[in-house]
């Protein structure tokens, strides 16, 4: 398998990643998920100030063939969105952990972030999911 999982990020079972930066978390789609989805052609971003809830859809990411929800990894308030994605959604394919970030959220409860998967756990999770297919 050929996908990149970065050290120091937290991962969800729906393949989002979160990076803690002070009291906010940067959120994006994992490399594995962007590869599965294929060429991304459209991103619908949340509104700044919107309240998002862990496990609920916060953004929509569309490839040529599929529509996928991006779920919020934690509860909180959206503080920033990556507007570059509106014109260059392919950044999620090209640089999922960097330029392809989707939104930032002010974290209410840090324990939610800590309960997400770390790199080795997420790698195992993907391998299991692949086997079940």
């Amino acid at each position, binding site marked *: 398998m050929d996908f990149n999982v970065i050290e120091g990020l937290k991962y969800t079972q729906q393949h989002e990643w979160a990076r803690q930066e002070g009291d906010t978390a940067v959120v994006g789609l994992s490399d594995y998920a962007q590869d599965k989805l294929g*060429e991304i*052609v459209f991103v619908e971003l949340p509104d700044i100030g919107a309240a998002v809830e862990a496990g609920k859809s916060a953004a929509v990411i569309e490839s040529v063939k599929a*529509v996928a929800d991006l779920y919020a990894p934690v509860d909180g308030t959206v503080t920033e969105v990556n507007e570059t994605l509106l014109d260059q959604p392919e950044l999620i394919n090209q640089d999922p952990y960097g330029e392809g970030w989707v939104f930032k959220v002010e974290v209410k409860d840090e324990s939610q972030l800590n309960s997400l998967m770390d790199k080795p756990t997420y790698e195992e999770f993907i391998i299991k999911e692949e086997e079940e297919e």
Partner: protein
Amino acid sequence: MSKPKKTPFYDKHVALNGKIVDYNGWFLPVQFSQGLVEEVHDTRKRATIFDVSHMGEVTVEGKDAEAYLQKILTNDVSKLKDNAIMYSPVCYPEGGVVDDILIYRFNSEYYFLVVNAANTDKDFDWFQENTFGDVKLQNLSPEYAQIALQGPNSQEILQELTGVKLADIKFYRFLGDVSVAGVNSIVSRTGYTGEDGFEVYCKNEGALNVWDAVWEAGQKKDLRPAGLGARDVLRLEASLPLYGHELSKELNPLQAGLDRFVALDKDVPFNGQGALKQQKEEGFSKKLFGLEMLERGVPRENYPVKVDEKEIGWISSGSYSPTLDKFIAMGFLDPEIMKQTEEVSVLIRKRSYRARITKMPFYRRGK
């Protein structure tokens, strides 16, 4: 549901890292590792190979074959010459569509029909119910494999495998009994991509030889595999209808703009003739239009289309178009309202996105 069937090329798709899905009861690749967008570009610029073995093949034989086809087809098959191919809808008496098919004429008493995979059994039953006189039908679908070689490099690739001069086979013409890599085949200049190309039909036994030979000859010509995803986008760019989207039991061929394949004034009666004539006179509440998004957003099947907050129809097929780098769609809209406006909005989730009416086909290949 029974387990999906494998085509003779299944192991090839797996070896090429194709992402396999169950498509209408067949295991087929939806895309390969280069991705759908690249597969579309490859088809338009170079050449791609598609496994289309899921398509159904039915032969019609007998003295009354032509008269029989005149009854079940909306197009006028009396105009078809030997070694020529015709596209035609097949209608119910009420005007709705059973299927849209290709008719290959070997001679006036022997025709080869190519039907949609999902409709093969339904079609065959319908064809049987409508027989009369000296007509014998055979469903050869289980025995036949089909390869589509599409793109500007197709002729050069295929020419290496046969002694027949392919340049002489014009668009919508075919030859039977062609030896392709030593395998007896039917070769037609047809496809579902809007690009130049060929479709090769042969019995399952020889199919892998043909695939391997095409693949090998193609290596010097940048041949790559392409899947169902690219096929669907390519046919949308070329505004080719897909059964279940632009045609169905509830949607007739005139609504879908296929007037030139419906010989309403054919001098022999055909299934659906009366109903279609009447509906044409009365006018249609929905007709097929081409749309291009003015705002970034992916129009997809069944999304509502609105004008001034009033719902006037729905999207039947839509996608990002890699060739045009635009978001395009076909949709059934109220033709009366469309006389007054060029602009509509497509409802994507809960938000409206502006779109405008545009001529079809969206893409037409250069000569």
